[in-house]
């Protein structure tokens, strides 16, 4: 049983048909992202004009109340959104390439739930853990879950087929989240501290937590760019990769570590946000084709853009309240998943 996809087959039609358009396209994405970020910063309980935003960034005045809001509340929030979006999208792209599974996503494969169980555990056991602990537990949880899903999904005949991996991930999620729920039910204090976080949210992210987790994610992103050529080769099939003289075991191991850094870091920062890693790589592939040297940077930018926009949407939809961004992503991503499962997975 193989599930080949149209999107992963060699000669797709892509929007940026000629190679010379790829770099300008990337720059256009950066421009869009910066625009979205500025828009997101200006929105809030008090509307702040773009000029003030600019002034607070480059000419900070600590007696100006607006400047303080921007520096302590809004800037960390939008930065967290960009980083989380980029991390989840790139993690998804790598997993889709590595397992040749169009449904791969750190949420669906259970990695997010592993990380969030570990973080809930940390809060439960340590009370008020230092911020550095969040990321650490996120990595441990993400790594364990990733290893488990891969092991369980490649069990039996046929190896790690997309459908088996997906089902293993779904069931592992059900399994782990029942433990998470057990903790949250038995301990109201932990629940109260963390309930918004478990829904996946960017609200109230502060600079210190960002500083603790961002470096890991940045290292992960850099690593992803460095091995993007090898991932392209593997995405054509293990046999092809071996035939081209690639040490697939090494690349896969390295890629797994990068996925754990990215997904674990993102969950530690913003809670389990699903579907970013599912949707974004498909969109990126639509623009740039099958080459992961381009898919990965495009995914990072589009992922950042998507989460920033979803965050803006989550704040303006039911003003003055706000929705967790994870809920927004589920609403956007689940129909996309259904579309993929229906039309892109054969069998």
């Amino acid at each position, binding site marked *: *049983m193989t599930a080949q996809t149209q999107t992963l087959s060699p000669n797709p039609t892509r929007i940026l048909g000629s190679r010379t358009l790829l770099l300008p396209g990337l720059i256009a994405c950066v421009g869009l992202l910066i625009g979205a970020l500025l828009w997101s910063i200006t929105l809030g309980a008090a509307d702040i004009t773009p000029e003030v935003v600019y002034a607070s960034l480059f000419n900070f005045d600590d007696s100006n109340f607006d400047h303080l809001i921007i520096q302590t509340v809004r800037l960390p929030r939008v930065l967290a959104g960009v980083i989380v979006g980029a991390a989840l999208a790139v993690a998804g792209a790598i997993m889709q390439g590595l397992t040749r599974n169009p*449904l791969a996503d750190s949420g*669906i494969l259970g990695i997010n739930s592993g990380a969030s169980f570990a973080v809930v555990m940390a809060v439960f056991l340590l009370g008020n853990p230092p911020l550095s602990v969040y990321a650490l537990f996120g990595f441990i949880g993400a790594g364990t879950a990733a290893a488990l899903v891969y092991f*369980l999904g490649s*069990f*039996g*005949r*046929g190896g790690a087929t997309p*459908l*088996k991996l*997906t*089902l*293993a991930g*779904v*069931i*592992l999620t*059900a*399994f782990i989240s*029942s*433990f998470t*729920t*057990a903790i*949250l*039910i*038995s301990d*109201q204090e932990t*629940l*109260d501290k963390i*309930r*918004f976080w478990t*829904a996946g949210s960017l609200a109230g992210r502060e600079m210190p937590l960002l500083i603790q987790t961002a470096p890991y994610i940045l290292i992960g992103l850099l690593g992803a760019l460095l091995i993007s050529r090898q991932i392209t080769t593997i995405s054509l099939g293990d046999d092809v990769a071996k035939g081209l003289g690639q040490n697939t075991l090494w690349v896969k191991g390295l890629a797994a570590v990068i996925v754990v850094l990215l997904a674990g870091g993102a969950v530690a920062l913003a809670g389990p946000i*699903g579907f970013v890693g599912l949707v974004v790589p498909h969109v990126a592939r639509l623009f740039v084709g099958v080459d992961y040297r381009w898919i990965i940077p495009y995914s990072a930018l589009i992922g950042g853009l998507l989460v920033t926009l979803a965050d803006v949407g989550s704040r303006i939809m039911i003003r003055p*309240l706000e*929705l*967790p961004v*994870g*809920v927004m992503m*589920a*609403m956007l991503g*689940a*129909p996309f*998943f*259904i579309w993929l*499962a*229906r039309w892109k*997975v054969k*069998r």
Partner: protein
Amino acid sequence: MNVGRPLKSTWLTLRFRKLPFSYRIDRRVPLVALLLMAFTLMVLIFSISYGAYDISPLEVIQTISGTLPQDHPDYRNFNLVVHTFRLPRIILAFLVGAALATSGAIMQGITRNPLADPYLLGVSGGAALVAVALIVWLKDLPISLLPWGAFAGALLTAGTIYILALKQGSSSPVRLILIGVALGSMIGAVLTVMLLFGDINDVQQAYVWLTGSVYGTRWEHVQALSGWLLVFLPIAFFMARSLNALNLGDETAQGLGLRVEWQRGALLIVSVALAAAAVAVAGTIGFVGLIAPHVTRRLVGPSHEGLLPVSALFGGALLVLADLIGRWVIAPGELPIGIITAIVGAPYFLYLLYRSR
């Protein structure tokens, strides 16, 4: 009714003198059913006797049968604890288990999908969404109305999943599950929104309910569920034969004179109704509908006349046991029954997944 001479040594045929109806069951069914009932009764008595307020098993039997002497020092307390607190929840656990197991067995039969389960197919989620909405918005809703709302939600979800999974006239088992999962996560997102802005106490309660729990059961819950079971369980048992035929494949079933689409639709509605009624009173309890039919098939074979009632018994026994375990592991706190079934059921699902290829 008399027990006719078996056609082959492994079958028993139940014939009804006045009715044009006979029921053929595997020879092992009566024994297995009896053993299950005995086991359930044992666990039930032990479960009633266990708790913060200890009552000896003998006293439990006396209290239930009304033979506890009036001058017993704890007469009033025992009656209160047994009749008001423990008996309803344990009976509810049994009924919920029976409903979910039968529902799962029917779903596995009509989809010919060994992995089908009302929870995995998102049907329980749809029921839960409507039930939570009703609880949150209409605060003083009588419990007996809840199953109707849940039924509507479950039917809508089941229909949506089935239509979305349909491709060239057939719905592959795996596609059903994948789409069920995706729809489930959308429903989960809506539920999250409803829960986020609630009071922390309500939220914690809702969490407990969503994981599936029989905590705080009153006799009204038992009443609300048993009405549905009285209607739909007999229908399910009565239709067991059509289920056997459907299980052979649509063409064979048609050849045997079955109106395939009509029967499948009716069975689907029965199965959704059973699951929805269970969810309405006890929340989303997963994996019972998956495990019970599988184990039962091992015990009494695949013929649905025996499979359906025995799975119902097995599912009931399983939940009574799970409830006891949930109250015991972190005593004096308690874990919702749905967590226990997920912890047992998820590995079992993986085992099935491993075997199914």
